Each structure stands twice: as C-alpha cells, then as structure tokens.
C-alpha cells in the first residue's frame, strides 16, 4: 500500500509553484515525490532547495509509509 503526502513550498519557491501546498496520493518514496513535483513545476529545477520529511531535513531517498509531510524549502535566511 502506497502513501499519501502533503507537499509544502516555502519562500521564493511559492512564486515558482504558484501555491504553497499540494496533495499527492499513491507515492512510494521521497524521490518519486520530487520527480512528480519537478515535472509539474519544471522551473523548480533552477532553484536551490532543501527537502524535509515530516519536519526533518533529509538528504537521501526515504520510503513513505502512510501520511507524510514533505517540504521544499529554499536556503534559510532567518536572523
């Protein structure tokens, strides 16, 4: 059984996507989520971004189990 994912966009990425969140069904892992997102918003390929799975930064592919939140985030600039 594949998973559901809420995908969030932050900072200047929202200007590329035009929305701050989308919902994906039947996704297997974070790599496949990234592929779907990049296909839907090809302009994202030109952007720098980090990915967080359930509020934790990830740097490699992760399998998804049921309900997850996946965030696409530009470099942080707080302070």
């Amino acid at each position, binding site marked *: 059984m594949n998973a559901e994912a809420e995908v969030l966009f*932050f900072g200047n990425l929202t200007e590329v996507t035009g929305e701050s969140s989308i919902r994906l069904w039947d996704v297997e892992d974070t790599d496949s989520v990234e592929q779907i997102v990049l296909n839907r918003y090809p302009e994202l390929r030109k952007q720098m971004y980090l990915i*967080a799975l359930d509020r934790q930064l990830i740097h490699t592919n992760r399998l998804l189990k049921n309900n997850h939140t996946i*965030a696409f985030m530009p470099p*942080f600039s707080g*302070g």
Partner: protein
Amino acid sequence: MRRSLFIQGPISVAFISAQIRKHQFKTNIGAHQIFLGQVRADQTDHGKISGIEYTAYESMALECIKKIKEDLFEKYPIRCMHVYHSLGMVKTGGCSLFIFVSAAHSEAAYLACQELLARVKKELPIWGKEIVDKVGYQWKLNPANANVL
C-alpha cells in the same frame, strides 16, 4: 511562562526590557548575554531595503529550536535561554531577532549565545523577503547558507 518562538511584527524594546527585568529576580545569575538583530537599510542592486517580511515553516522551526535548546543546556552551564524571531513585516531599524542567555558566569552565557545565534541562522526554516523601494522585493540570503545544496 510563554515559550513561543515567533512574534508577529517587530520585537519591541518594551518586550526586551520586560525580559531583562524579569531575570533580575534570579539572584543566581551573574551574566546576561543579549543579541538583537535589527533590519538594515542596505543598498542593493535593486534599491534600498525598506523592510524584511519574514515567513517560516513554523512547526518545523519549533521542533528545531527545542532540539537546539536541549543541546545547549546540556553543553553549557547556563540558567536561562530565550529566543524570539519576528514573522511578517519588520521595517528597517526594527528588531527581528532577540536572543537572551543567562548564566552564573559570563563565559558560558557568551559561548551559548553565539552558538544559539549561529544555529538559528543556519537551522531554522525561516525566510526573509527584503522589500526594496524600487522593484518591490528580493529574497534574503544568509551567506553561510548559500552553498548548502
């Protein structure tokens, strides 16, 4: 005691004063180290900055800051640690970041304050949109985070 991280708009001097005053009742504290981040009217290629509009991935930021605080309380003999960051619009001259670390002795307060500041800038999912008077805005970039990818 309110433990929130985010404050809507600029952090007021009244709020900062209240924090200092509150800690004068803790007579095991000998040193307070305070950092205030203030929005600069920098001149950029696109015009002069008139303010920064901050957004954040709030739930992730709250988890991050909790972890950072745990790390620092374990690492340094400090008594209190508070950090507040603005969300929304902060005009130039306004305070967007307030860090307050207290300890018996100055050394621990100083080191913990500096490490907290570095980690806030590097690890908290917060974004600043620099509003410039001519074209409208550009996104802020922390130099240390430019090559994270």
